[in-house]
């Protein structure tokens, strides 16, 4: 990690992560630019800024996280400053500045899921995957397993409260989980890797 000299570089630091080997590095290409233009065209004339969130989602979906280089690229697409993009990225819990593992697990620990055991599940998964639960605190709570295959993040409410505890692996939701089901699920995903 390099020493940062000003506010922008302090906000846009490249964090080390073992998950990087599972995602391609960010490369600005013509195809990406075309896709970004499509998002911009969804919004009324002159409102490029509105496309910032969809473009961030696109980048995060392809490259796993928002790296400093992609921030300046996004700023160009939306005709705004880099610090503005950094402000958006740092606001939303759903946007990451650190590369997750290949399988990113989000476990809900809000009241309804906690009533059915969501909080215990987080500790259990951490133990199983060899992730230090201390990593799950702070501004960007995410623990990555040393081999980079898994990452875990406690999240607030996935809006499926009646069927808790809920967790998401990448884009798929799994409800009514317990320890046995988690074991099975992790084995399933480990095979896919």
């Amino acid at each position, binding site marked *: 990690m390099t020493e940062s000299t000003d506010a922008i570089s302090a906000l846009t630091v490249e964090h080390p992560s073992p998950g990087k080997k599972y995602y391609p590095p960010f490369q600005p290409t013509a195809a990406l630019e075309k896709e970004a233009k499509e998002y911009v065209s969804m919004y009324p004339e002159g*409102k490029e800024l*509105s496309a910032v969130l969809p473009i961030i989602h696109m980048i995060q979906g392809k490259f796993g996280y928002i790296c400093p280089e992609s921030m300046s690229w996004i700023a160009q697409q939306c005709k705004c400053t880099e610090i503005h993009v950094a*402000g958006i990225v740092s606001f939303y819990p759903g946007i990451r500045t650190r590369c997750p593992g290949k399988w990113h697990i989000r476990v809900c620990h809000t*009241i309804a899921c906690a009533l059915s055991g969501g909080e215990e599940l987080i500790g259990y998964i951490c133990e199983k995957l060899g992730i230090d639960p201390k990593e799950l605190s702070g501004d960007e709570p995410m623990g990555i397993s040393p081999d980079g295959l898994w990452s875990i993040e406690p999240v*607030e409410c996935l*809006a499926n409260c009646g069927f808790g505890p809920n967790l998401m692996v990448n884009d798929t939701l799994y409800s009514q989980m317990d320890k046995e089901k988690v074991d099975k699920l992790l084995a399933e995903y480990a095979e896919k890797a």
Partner: protein
Amino acid sequence: MSDIIYKPGHEPHPRETRRIFRNIDRVGYTPSIDSFIKDGGYETLKKVIKTEPASIIDEVKKSGLRGRGGAGFPTGVKWTFIPKGNTKPVYLICNCDESEPGTFKDRFIVHQDPHQLLEGMIIACYAVQAHYAIIYMREEFPEAAKIMRTALKEAEQHHFLGKNILGSGYDLRIILHRGAGAYICGEETGLINSIEGVRPYPRIKPPFFPAAIGLYGCPTIVNNVESLCQVRQVLMRGGEAYATDGAQRSPGTRIIGVSGDVKRPGYYEIISGSITYGELLYDLCGGPREGRTFKAIIPGGASAKVMSCTEVLKGRNPDGSVRKMSIFDVPMDLDSIAQHGSMSGSGGVIVMDDSRSMPEMLRNLNRFFAWESCGQCTPCREGNPWMLKLSERICAGKAAPEDVDLLKSVADNICGRTVCAFGEACSWPVQAFTTKFREEFLAKTQPINALKPHNPETAEARKFLSRED
């Protein structure tokens, strides 16, 4: 692999009335437009698009429909707030950022019956003459986003969307915009800022009432998913017929999501006010789990004030005399529970039984609000982490009895001092929990703790204060 608990052929409870959730769990029903059209879908749109927009607004006003997002504001009245003689474009936003803990009704609508929402939305757009509309969907619904994009394409192919809808000369474009996991984006002005591409801080009202100054400074109507589906029901049944169903001041059906310690948690659609909380929990949900009794109920999503099951409420008999009742006797409409100091909000009922520790529950809620505070207003940004620290300290048994009062006083000082309703949302649970379960909080404290340091740094500093160490 589906993103929802799908229970094909699951029969609704006989006391339910499924209208919005009619097609949820129906065997053979898919989210495709063919399923919906076969079921009589888009007929209402074909009927009303030939009428005057003003007559649709009148019909919705007559129906007495109230918004289902939590605040319960009359939908038709909201639509009339667009300034007269407005020359700017009008926008309509569907709020699908369902993130109130305990609420999960919209998830099932967008996953299993997206066209129902689209039809309601097109009708609403036509009524307020919006030509551009946005579905703001939370990021945690990736599967629903795919379903909704397909649904939008299908609707366009069938000429229910796009240029010159059904030959009426009316144009409408609907796009899908995804959030990124922030609770504050469910607040309508925060949501608008999120769409504009700036940090989603809520705006102050007045002057930023969305119906007057909303998205890009133009009049904007923000409605919840269920409200828009109800609009379709209103036009299908006619405003007057709709108004006769259920509670007088909040007619129509309501979708209730029950979570926590009951035998059958899940979603239930009932006629507003037709059953009581007791009937919901004992009949529909099957009562408490084996060997347990109900202890507390949060009646309307995490930000509603908790109700104790043993607390004695004052009810009124039809002749005006006062009678004693409990939370189980309160009917499930929008207003009854408000008379007893809580709110029915977005219909998320969270139930806790006697095995639960109330300070633990409050700690969980405080963590949620501390995490989700957007940080715009100082009382909320600083108060929430403080309340979290206090409740964590109480749970750890390291608090003094005065800390319970301090906790409540912090909440009292956030409430009403913030730009948006988040200030109330985070302080109401604290106020209710610490008042109604005060004994339980005090039992976890010890007077001696007032003299002890709270963290390693102060423990270190203490050695300079005492001669003994």
